């Protein structure tokens, strides 16, 4: 009805992907002086992306759905970008976390990455954001694959930037598994195209129900699910994750754990709820049972492994395996409550795990701590970092009134409502185990005396340096959001409930 004032506003969906992509290309090819300011360029690009994502989210929740034809070509000839409430939430989440990570990286990535590699690190970070945003926004399955590869390649590079040689091995292992996953996904897409003759998601949704039972479509579904399970690190396909998150630089771990795996889950949701319809999972394949079992196992196994860890980042990595279990569990129960809970938990885990990995980085910077045993009495030396860590841990554990409580409440309520009594204890016991592995860090940090003459495992010759303020600020802000959004859960929950409702439409 109303003409947009600026024609640019029409192009927000495209800009959201292009801005980080172009910025990513500019940094390595620019003159030396600008290259040194890579952190600032990345920060500005991420700020722009955050603004664009916010505007797009407002627009999407107002209109219900925003579409954009790339290059002006209408589907099915051109590539369509389609934004529904779920995509809008995810885009905003990715942009927000990336922005926070960019603030941190600009201030403190230099502590873990060699000076000459820094511009390339910032460039790869932007490439990851561009790839992830593209995966979320696209309405075309082949285009989804292309963005997946962009994001994956950036991910391998980010992990390999870690300061230990182990980072290279971790990156290589992830590369092999990631490539297998991408190949599976490509095969799945190929089979879908073979069977239906289209790559557009909306068209696939229309055409597939007639051919649900054909072997081609079933095979395609299997390939897609396994492929995305690897990218999501769903138990038992999580084996690449602990090493990758442990050895990657802390801000990269924050970005990958917060945004990377979430987009994997998002793609899985798109495949199971949008490309295929909910009834496909209900009547054609026993996907619900398989996912319930795997995600329950993930929750418990990931948490038990996290309890057994001595290294801070490795503990956080195993915690991710467990929390991804929660997200998939909520999605698998497939009720309004549980799916809302699943989306809330994506938000909770993204914000909190980003905060926690940043805290791990801050601990390394300010005290040289890499192992949990290095943290004895550390709260006195880094009060802000430990306060942020504790607040984030409380939200991860699901103690009210935090966002983590709200998300687990919805997931568990969905399970009670569906009469899945075996799942309820898993959800609750998982919280307890979460509490235990975080308590193993919090207790010594606050209540133990610092050992005399102890040399922290991550410390070279350098003396203790106070963490830069702009590295601690985003960690504290993210952790604070967990409590704030818990008290005002109304806002995220309303958005999540709407997104969940649309996914569940028959």
């Amino acid at each position: 009805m109303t003409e947009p004032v600026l024609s640019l506003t029409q192009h927000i969906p495209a800009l959201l992907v292009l801005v980080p992509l172009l910025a990513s290309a500019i940094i390595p090819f620019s003159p030396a002086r600008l290259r040194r300011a890579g952190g600032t360029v990345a920060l500005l690009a991420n700020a722009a992306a955050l603004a664009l994502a916010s505007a797009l989210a407002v627009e999407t929740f107002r209109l219900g759905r925003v579409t954009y034809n790339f290059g002006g070509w209408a589907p099915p000839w051109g590539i369509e970008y389609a934004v529904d409430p779920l995509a809008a939430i995810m885009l905003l989440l990715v942009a927000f976390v990336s922005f926070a990570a960019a603030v941190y990286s600009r201030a403190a990535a230099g502590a873990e990455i060699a000076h000459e590699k820094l511009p390339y690190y910032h460039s790869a970070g932007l490439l990851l954001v561009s790839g992830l945003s593209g995966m979320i926004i696209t309405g075309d399955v082949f285009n989804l694959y292309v963005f997946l590869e962009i994001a994956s390649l950036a991910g391998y590079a980010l992990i390999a930037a870690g300061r230990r040689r182990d980072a290279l091995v971790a990156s290589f292992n992830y590369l092999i598994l990631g490539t297998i996953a991408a190949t599976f996904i490509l095969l799945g897409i190929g089979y879908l195209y073979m069977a239906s003759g289209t790559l557009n998601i909306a068209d696939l949704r229309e055409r597939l129900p007639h051919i649900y039972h054909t072997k081609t479509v079933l095979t395609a579904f299997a390939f897609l699910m396994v492929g995305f399970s690897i990218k999501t690190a769903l138990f038992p396909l999580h084996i690449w994750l602990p090493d990758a998150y442990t050895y990657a630089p802390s801000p990269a771990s924050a970005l990958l754990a917060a945004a990377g795996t979430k987009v994997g889950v998002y793609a899985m949701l798109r495949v199971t709820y949008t490309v295929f319809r909910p009834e496909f999972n209900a009547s054609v394949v026993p996907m619900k049972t398989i996912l319930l079992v795997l995600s329950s196992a993930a929750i418990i196994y990931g948490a038990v492994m996290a309890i057994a860890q001595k290294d801070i980042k490795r503990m956080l990595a195993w915690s991710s395996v467990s929390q991804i279990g929660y997200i998939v569990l909520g999605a698998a129960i497939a009720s309004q409550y549980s799916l809302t809970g699943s989306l809330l938990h994506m938000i909770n885990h993204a914000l909190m795990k980003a905060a926690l990995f940043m805290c791990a980085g801050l601990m390394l910077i300010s005290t040289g701590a890499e192992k949990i045993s290095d943290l004895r009495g550390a709260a006195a030396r880094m009060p802000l970092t430990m306060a942020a860590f504790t607040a984030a841990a409380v939200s991860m554990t699901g103690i009210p009134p935090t966002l983590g409580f709200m998300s687990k409440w919805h997931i568990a309520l969905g399970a009670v409502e569906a009469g899945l009594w075996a799942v309820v204890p898993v959800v609750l016991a998982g919280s307890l185990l979460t509490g235990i592995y975080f308590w193993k860090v919090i207790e010594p940090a606050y209540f133990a005396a610092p050992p005399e003459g102890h040399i922290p495992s991550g410390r070279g010759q350098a003396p203790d340096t106070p963490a830069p303020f702009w590295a601690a600020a985003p960690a504290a802000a993210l952790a604070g959001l967990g409590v704030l959004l818990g008290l005002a859960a109304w806002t995220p929950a309303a958005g999540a409930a709407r997104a969940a409702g649309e996914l569940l439409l028959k």
Partner: protein
Amino acid sequence: MSELLSFKPLYAVLASLAAGLLVSVSGRRPRLRESFTLAGAAAKFGIIISMLPAVLAGHSFSTPGLEVFPGMELRLKADALGMVFAAMSSFLWILVSVYSVGYLQKTGEERRTRFFAFFAFTLSAAAGLAFSANLFTAFVFYELITLATYPLVAHKQTKEAMESGRIYLAYLLGTSLTFMLAAILITYNAAGTLDFVPGGIFGELAAGNKVLLGTVFFLFIAGTAKAAIMPLHSWLPAAMVAPAPVSALLHAVAVVKAGVFLVLKVTLHVFGAETLRELGFGGPLAWIASFTIIAASVMALTQDNLKLRLAYSTVSQLSYVVLGAALLSPSALKGAVAQLAAHGFAKITLFLAAGAIYALERRTKVSELDGIGRRMPLTMTAFSLCALSMIGAPPLAGFISKWHIGLGAVEAGRPVFLAVIGASALLNAAYFLPIIYRAFWGRPGADHGAGHGAATESGAAAMMMVVPLVITAAVTLALFFFPGPLLKLAELAAGG
């Protein structure tokens, strides 16, 4: 019977929260810090007492709700039952604050700022629980009490204190985050609301869903480990490594009282006495409580450590509240509410006395107390009075509550529980009377004869400890002679 819209319950919560925050930033100036604590305590008590007349007249004070999510809101409401808990704990906070100043000075404990700050935070959460208008709010504050008391339990930061702290968290968070949360989830799914409503929220559901509601009821009981019902009591004896004022907080002011308070709340305002009678869940719970009453008393008999003996005594006495709730007859419920207060005042005196004995004479064992009554006459007189109240002897508060619970057992047609009350009184006498005898008539042995005969209750610090415990003992006495307001509140709470 009307509900008044008022922010007073919220102010009661905020008063101690503000005090805690001010304390935590004034660590370098101890006098200022202590005055913040005392000002907070006085303000809180004033706010709560200002609501008492209206509550006694049958009204309640309710704040507007903060809707966190549709169907789930944080809302405070001061009713008769909450009033008993809140008025008692806020009154005791004043006394314990004064006592703590003297105690910490005499024992030379470190980290006093953290101590006073978290003490205030705990009181804030306790008021929140006392005034919670629904299960969600209650759950939030119940967990906050646990988190806020942890630094106090682990205060000494020794290996033993840390171990006890871990047990404390494991029991309290472990049960509430699983059993209680499960119970709340099922309740919400079944009843569609989490509000506390006198008479219960299940209504017609009760008839056909005995198994489901039974599961919910006992999940609630198992989830409320703060009530220290056996076998979930071990955290309480373990926590006695903490300084004496913290034991007072755990045993009388906030923590265990929060547990039995929630049991009463679930009994009266989630299920409703009527519904529970129909469903017949009272019987099994009454037996569990009786077992705890007797078994904990027997365990108390064998303890030589004074604080440990008192801790087992608490486990036993708390189950009187649970027994009263389980009997479900009007008098028994009234007795249960009265016991909440009677035990609070008496047990705090006992713990404060035990702390004074440690701070002034460095004695912790019952076997070292020979002749101590001659050196600390005020302390030991107060101790003796309150020990008699525990036994249930008139003219003390303990008699009032036990009388009503006993009466309730007869009303409910279960006189067998009179035998439990009688047996317990004998056991209580068996572990308390020897202490009194030793204190006043025992001959100090040569090995711990330091300070022979000389009175040690002198000096400002000592008086800061002795005066509060004399006051609480006096209240225990006064509650027998003037039980009117307490019994009126108890009657209102029990739905009379």
